[in-house]
């Protein structure tokens, strides 16, 4: 009788790296999945550099920015969903005492729907309400599944806009030795992508910049190593940026993207000299571990802290509740807090 795991053992024995659970977070964002390409900057091809001798960048204060979004369908106008969404962003600054304190925050509640698909009365009520209404595209207003996906995209845009606004404001107040670390890409903002002390930390790897041996080199980066700096090919409204990968934890035994971060900094020659110190600095941020978040292998604790802060301040009625989904007899709409 064949043992169920025997074929796995066979492929591992043949040279495959053993792996286990692939967490949901490793799937990456689904909005950037296409191949974009990149140009190596440090050398002619993407190389791997150990961080053993790299001295972490000596930073004074560091500000960390992150945002959250929360939403729920609060009603239907016909078959058109009406979504109540909350987007928020905050910057928490870490000073010499190593404690994080909020220095900036912004939040906004929006309604997302397709106004022209709503019954007139509902539309008028919504227009009269003291809330910004975002329309998702008309072509998504049919099937609820597409409508909800479109609504989610609008919420993400609202959150991204808040983050961008807050980051750009903070850049102007940044002290001379202070850095701003952003959860996500810098290239969405001209100010961020050009600032000498702004750093983007990207933990989702849906975008593909390399192929073949370079891709394998990037994704099998050993622990305590970084790749060479590369310049992602500009797409859409993206700005020119320098980027490189760094591995925080050994991935062997987990999955390829385990502990893998992609960093972004301004496209400037000085960045080449900072790539190793920044990578070493990022690696030093592994402690404390950002548990219980499932993405803790890539989630920096200060970013996790900002997220915790924002969730603590979000409207409690928007957080998911493990409530029963038994029908509401006699009611047309579930009551929603204003």
């Amino acid at each position, binding site marked *: 009788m064949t043992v169920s795991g025997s074929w796995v053992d066979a492929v591992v024995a043949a040279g495959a790296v053993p792996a286990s659970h692939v967490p949901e977070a490793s799937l990456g964002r689904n909005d950037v999945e296409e191949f974009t390409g990149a140009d190596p900057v440090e050398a002619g091809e993407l190389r791997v550099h150990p961080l053993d001798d790299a001295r972490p960048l000596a930073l004074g204060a560091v500000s960390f920015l992150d945002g959250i979004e929360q939403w729920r369908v609060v009603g239907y106008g016909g078959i058109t969903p009406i979504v109540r969404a909350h987007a928020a962003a905050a910057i928490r600054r870490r000073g010499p005492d*190593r404690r994080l304190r909020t220095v900036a925050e912004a939040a906004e509640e929006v309604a997302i729907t397709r106004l022209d698909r709503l019954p007139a009365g509902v539309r008028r009520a919504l227009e009269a309400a003291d809330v910004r209404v975002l329309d998702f595209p008309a072509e998504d207003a049919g099937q609820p599944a597409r409508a909800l996906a479109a609504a989610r995209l609008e919420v993400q845009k609202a959150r991204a806009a808040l983050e961008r606004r807050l980051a750009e404001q903070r850049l102007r107040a940044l002290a001379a030795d202070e850095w701003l670390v952003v959860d996500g890409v810098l290239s969405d903002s001209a100010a961020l992508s050009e600032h000498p002390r702004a750093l983007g930390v990207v933990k989702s790897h849906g975008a593909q910049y390399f192929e073949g041996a370079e891709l394998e080199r990037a994704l099998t980066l050993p622990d305590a190593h970084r790749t060479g700096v590369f310049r992602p090919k500009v797409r859409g409204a993206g700005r020119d940026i320098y980027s490189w990968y760094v591995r925080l934890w050994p991935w062997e035994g987990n999955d390829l993207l385990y502990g893998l971060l992609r960093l972004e900094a301004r496209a400037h020659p000085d960045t080449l000299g900072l790539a190793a110190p920044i990578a070493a600095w990022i690696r030093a941020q592994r402690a404390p571990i950002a548990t219980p978040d499932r993405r803790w292998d890539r989630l920096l604790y200060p970013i996790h802290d900002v997220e915790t802060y924002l969730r603590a301040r979000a409207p409690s009625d928007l957080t998911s509740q493990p409530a029963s989904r038994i029908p509401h007899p006699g009611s047309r709409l579930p009551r929603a807090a204003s």
Partner: protein
Amino acid sequence: MIERRDAPHPSHLAPPIGRVVATEQKPATPHQFHFWTANQTTIGIGAIVRVEEPGSGNGETGKVVWGVVTDGFAYSDLATPLHDVVGAEGDPAKAAESPTVRQEIRLWTAAVLRQTPEEPLQPVPLGQVHVASDVDVAQALRMDAYLGGAEPTAIPVGLYTSGGLEAPVYVDADFLLGPEAAHLNISGVSGLATKTSAVEFLLTSIFQHFPPHKGRVGAVCFNVKGPDLCFLDRPGTLQDEDRRRYERLGVEPEPFRRVRYYAPFKADGVNLNTLRTHPDLVGDVEPLVWGLREVLDYAEVLLNRDDIDAKADAFIDFLADRVVDKEFEDGFGGVHRVVTFADLERLFRSIFDGLELASRGGDSWRTHHIATMRKVRNRLANISTRCKGLVTDDGPSNDLPWGRFDDRTVYVVDVANVDPLGQDLVFARVVSQLRERLERRDLGVDAVVVFVDELNKYAPADGPETYVKKMLLDISERGRYLGLVLFGAEQFRSQVHRRVVGNAGTVVFGRMDADELATPGYQVLSPATKIKLATLPIGELMVRHPHFTQPIFVRFPRPAVLRGRDGVERYPPAADLPFEDAVARQLVKLDRRVRPNQVKDLIADRREEDVRRALAHTRQTRPQDALAHFKKQLGGRVAAAPAAARESVAPLNQISDEPY
């Protein structure tokens, strides 16, 4: 009077130091709530806080709740300890160097002291938490009920101290000294001098703040070990901090103005059995000497459980009613007037001789079996032997000034070196006298504090039902109506009879032993409170009082009296004097004109018991011319008579099995 020390503004205007939180797991209730504070906070276990419910906005103020912190928690967002190990790669040094400090929380649990309005009683609102001010402390502890008004009854007990605030804490005299409640019990480990110091300070406070409308108050303190209470009239050393605390509490830092010391003699009958024998001080010490009458009234104390029977009781009653202090015919031709132990012994001898000489040797006398009489004789003889010095075989007694107790006076009865049986006797007689006199309202004061250390010895939780224990129970349960107030101290409260400690209206705890805190009596205390009790510094106490719904920690100044240990160093006890010198010194004390050499010449070659009898009589009479009186009592020198041949006595019949 309540006043602030260093509060810049009222608590309701000061910024909050925390906020009440309630979850399903840790809800706020009418008796308990939880709140968080910043990591750096002045709040600690025992701190009093004030919770304010936001007003409704129409001018009405919300509910106000006062609570005392009973427990504290700190935790971070760390999911499991393993994650910290992983983050630090197994190196504790790295954990300390992590670039970011984890989020932490300081969460506190508080027990509700008071709510306003008090009805309807509801869960604590999720409001802001403020540090309590002086006024808050008074309200939280319901002291406002007895601090003011036409007849305030507040007695300062200590300072509540937390977060830079220092507020006097008062107990209610009506609940400390009766009639509403009474008695105080204090527990704490030995060796820190906390228990004795606390009682000394509290007595000072009582004497200075006992409300005039409640009359006169005194204290009787039994010194049961060492020199603890031997120097209450001598000033001790105080630090500036102590003086400041005295001032804050409104108590004058001074030793007791009126202290009367009583101590029995040693076996020689002339040297006092106390550590207060320094020549400068011994003049204040009155001998405590009891005779047959004083002992016979409390003979039950002397009888153990096996002894107690109706026959012995009946015989003792017979002696007390029919024999002592009366002309009594023994039935064999002899007439006796029994006043002293020696007289009684003569009577017994006469009876036993009479019975033996009687034909066929009867075994009963006046319906009392000879075995019973021998047992009683044995016990009475035993006390006069074991407590020689306290109990005199002959001569008059010298006692506390019954009926003439002075206001604000401490009567120290030093029985530290007395045989335990004698201690029981002293305790039983003194307390019984206090009780009887207070019942008749002829003691001289309206209320008496009786301080008894080592209460676990006199009223143990288990063991036989002794006379002393029964008496302590009686005081505990009924003393408050009389003004007879028991201040008991012991190391282990759990070892004291629960009805004695249970009836103490005010309970004070010093530093406690961890094993003691593990006993069931402390289950109501939180683990944090227990830890605080186990590490309590000298000078800090936890107080429970009927007005306080929760125990409160207070600090008190060290007493302004000389500590026993220091007193012995400053006033070293004098060595025992030879018999002649001791007699001379006592006569000199009574009359400064007396020359010691005159006394020595006078008593040379005289029997010591005759000298002691004459001295006791002189001491009791206190004549103008002590030497002349002494000489008269001593009588003329009589040549020693040759010893008479003892008449042979036939052996007794039928009593060969009696064990006495």
